[in-house]
């Protein structure tokens, strides 16, 4: 490892995530969700009329849809009361749409991202960074070399102004309509911030670009929208990081992600999320993949009180490919309900899902997945593999895959295993001089390796470190 990587490893991850800042905002709506609130948000953002109309339509849909309550084993959402949420907080910054220099940010915000290690990562490994604090992007930068090729990476609010035609065409229209589910509707009504990525035909963005989302205030909701359009034969890797400190009151995160993968294009979307243990993380993420395109989802779901998140891919063109790699960790009081959905709607499409989960101290993990092979999607193949590791008897781990197969010329396989950490493995490592904690941590690191090896080294190190933290103090 280089010295930089050593340094990253030694950063005190716990201190990085758990600190909180005094709330300081320039503009903040009242609690709850009304038409008035929506109008105020839209006006504060100086949005075009069509966007306001979309928001208001989504609000109506939200009000009409029931909360999901009857899925087998789903997290309890009874505490999620929208009337108790502050949907929009604009932090006190001078440059709307994000500063281009960290030094232009108010000290406490800069300090936050310093502690999270974002500027350092940007210098070392990224081609661009967007940083969202509460409801707005506060920093946005894209290295010149990519900008020259026509790559756009900006915050979503700015995109509404500067790339209006593209946004109008793609924003919650063909991919994730507000009518998709209760929280997509909520998101459509009060979305704020997030990233807009546009990669022109044939352009490869060789280094990952990153957006980091930080919720700081108590009782707020964060609803960022990410729209990625990768034109034919382009390539981009987008990384999203999220965190929030813990308050006594719950927070709500309900983001929306829409990815368009053009013909022969390749998009990787990586997330390492570490929400505080009182955050409800209810996201909708979906990709549409054209002919011979490839979509890759890599997600680490750490933190949160409850997560309901099933990134979905629609394989629309022949020869399209989708890969999901996910890892979930649930400790005390946490319910992580996550999985993947794939719709094979064309011939010769291919998908793989690899899901790993760890539960401990009463945590609950659930893999909930759907593989749909439409009539006519011949020669499609899919393989789903789920492994769950359980540390103790207070924890719960469920696997609920659904497979809908309407085409005979297919190859469909699902496999799942659940087990405890192997006594023999621990004994083996102990007999080579490791103590019990180290032995178990090493086994866990091995267990999640298929995930970490897909991530840039900084993220892999962070994921490992987060898991070590989760396990500390309870393994003795």
């Amino acid at each position, binding site marked *: 490892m280089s010295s930089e990587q050593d340094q990253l490893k030694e950063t005190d991850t716990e201190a990085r995530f758990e600190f909180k800042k005094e709330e300081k905002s320039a503009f903040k709506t009242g609690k709850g969700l009304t038409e008035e609130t929506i109008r105020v948000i839209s006006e504060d953002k100086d949005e075009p009329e069509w966007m306001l109309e979309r928001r208001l339509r989504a609000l109506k849909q939200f009000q009409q849809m029931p909360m999901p309550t009857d899925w*087998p*084993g789903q997290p309890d959402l009874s505490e999620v009361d929208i009337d108790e949420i502050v949907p929009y907080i604009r932090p006190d910054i001078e440059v709307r749409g994000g500063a281009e220099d960290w030094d232009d940010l108010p000290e406490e915000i800069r300090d936050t991202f310093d502690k999270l290690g974002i500027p350092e990562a940007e210098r070392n490994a990224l081609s661009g960074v967007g940083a969202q604090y509460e409801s707005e992007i506060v920093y946005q930068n894209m290295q010149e070399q990519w900008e020259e090729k026509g790559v756009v990476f900006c915050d979503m609010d700015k995109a509404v102004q500067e790339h209006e035609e593209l946004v109008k065409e793609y924003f919650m229209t063909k991919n994730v309509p507000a009518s998709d589910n209760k929280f997509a509707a909520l998101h459509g009504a009060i979305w704020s911030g997030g990233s807009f990525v546009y990669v022109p035909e044939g352009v490869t963005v060789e280094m990952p670009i990153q957006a980091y989302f930080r919720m700081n205030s108590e009782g707020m909701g964060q609803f960022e929208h990410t729209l990625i359009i990768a034109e034919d034969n382009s390539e981009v890797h987008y990384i999203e990081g999220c965190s929030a400190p813990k308050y006594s009151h719950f927070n709500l995160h309900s983001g929306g992600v829409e990815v368009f993968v053009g013909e022969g294009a390749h998009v990787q979307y990586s997330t390492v999320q570490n929400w505080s243990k009182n955050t409800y993380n209810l996201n909708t993420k979906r990709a549409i993949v054209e002919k011979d395109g490839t979509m890759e989802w890599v997600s680490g779901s750490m933190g949160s009180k409850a997560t309901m998140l099933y990134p979905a891919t629609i394989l629309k063109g022949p020869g399209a490919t989708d890969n999901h790699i996910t890892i979930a960790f649930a400790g005390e009081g946490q319910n992580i309900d996550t999985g993947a959905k794939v719709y094979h709607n064309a011939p010769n499409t291919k998908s793989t899902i690899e899901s790993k989960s760890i539960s401990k101290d009463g945590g609950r993990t659930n893999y909930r997945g*759907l593989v749909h092979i439409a*009539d006519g999607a*011949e020669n499609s193949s899919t393989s789903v593999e789920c492994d*769950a590791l*359980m*540390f*103790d*008897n207070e*924890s*719960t*781990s*469920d*696997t*609920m*895959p*659904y*497979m*809908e*197969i*309407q*085409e*005979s*010329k*297919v*190859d*469909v*396989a*699902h*496999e*799942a*295993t*659940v*087990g*405890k950490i192997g006594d023999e493995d621990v004994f083996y490592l102990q007999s080579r001089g490791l103590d019990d904690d180290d032995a178990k941590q090493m086994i866990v690191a091995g267990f999640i390796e298929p995930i970490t090896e897909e991530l840039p080294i900084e993220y892999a190190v962070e994921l490992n470190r987060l898991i070590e933290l989760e396990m500390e103090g309870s393994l003795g």
Partner: protein
Amino acid sequence: MSTGVHAAIDEATVRQLSEELGEPDWLLETRLDALAALSDLDFPDVIQTPGRKWTDLEDLDYESLVDPLNAAESKDQVGPEGVEVLSFSEAVEQHGDLLEERFGSVVDPKTNYLTALSTALFSTGTVVYVPEKVDAEDVKVRTTMNSRSLFNYTLVVAEESASVTLLERQDTGDAVDGSRYYSGVVEIVAGENAYVQYGSLQDLDQETYNYQIKEGRAGTYGQVDFIDCNVGSRLSKSTVETHLDGDSSETKIVGAFYGHDDQHFDIDARVWHRAENTTADLVTRGVIDDHARSVYEGVQDVGRDAWNTSSYQRENTLMLSDESEADASPKLIINNHDTEASHSATVGQVDAEDMFYMTSRAVPERRARNMLVEGFYVPVLEEIEVDELREDFESVVRTRLANRD
């Protein structure tokens, strides 16, 4: 919540059925209770994914299907010496106490709308009683349905250290105009160290709608095995469940189905691990052809106190036609970490390499395919201890394949 209970599904009907069977008051009360509960009960759970329900039971027109007072069947109940194989009315006379103790002890009549309907309206059935330490092989119950509807009830009790293998089969005889409805409730109790293998072959005609629920409870060191073969009916919902209540109890649930034309099979296999050192093995293999559709749900539920559980599940579907659909959802619910559990499911077509191998050895293509389909069932058929069941299933498969293009 259900609505629209048929006019003939009323108290007078229930009282008449009970009287004809010469039933004691407690059983009449149980029936009336079930009848009264109908309006509050839901239909059986079926799998739902966004935008669709995998099996639609609510929309069946029970009013035209159910005709409880005109039930007709021919039944053949045989068993070896030392074991009692009784018709339900005989059992009411001879084993009143046993019935009172066991009836509804495994399948709660109020499990759902259709179980309650069965309890209120059943008119025929079989009670198999195997006393302590008796080994009984090849008990056979053959039911031929000759009426619009038939409600059947089966109770198998194997006392401590007893063992029994049995086959129950259903088919249809005299034709009726329009559709029919067959409903079967099966309860199996395996005492300490007892062994029960219950095999069934459902071969009803394709005008018949079919609902069956088969549940077993296994005591300490007990074992309940199910073989659930489905080839007939227009639409079947078949639920097979084992409750591993005693330490070191075991179950094997073996399923086989073959759907063609526009048949619809909805098959559930569930196991509840509720004691220590229990083992479950679930294997289902099915073939689906023409416009047929199969829905499979497997559940392995490991309770908080089920230490040292082993639980395995496999489901494989072979699709022979592009118009068919195979849905599967094998579920694991694990609350105890001292568990080794796995499940897997596959869907595919006849293996191209196998076909190539056989055709390259001069086996004509059609014959090669038929042999491979027959061979596909071998791992599940091997588990069947009653020869008649295995042979009958194989012959149905062979005939269907022969009649195919």
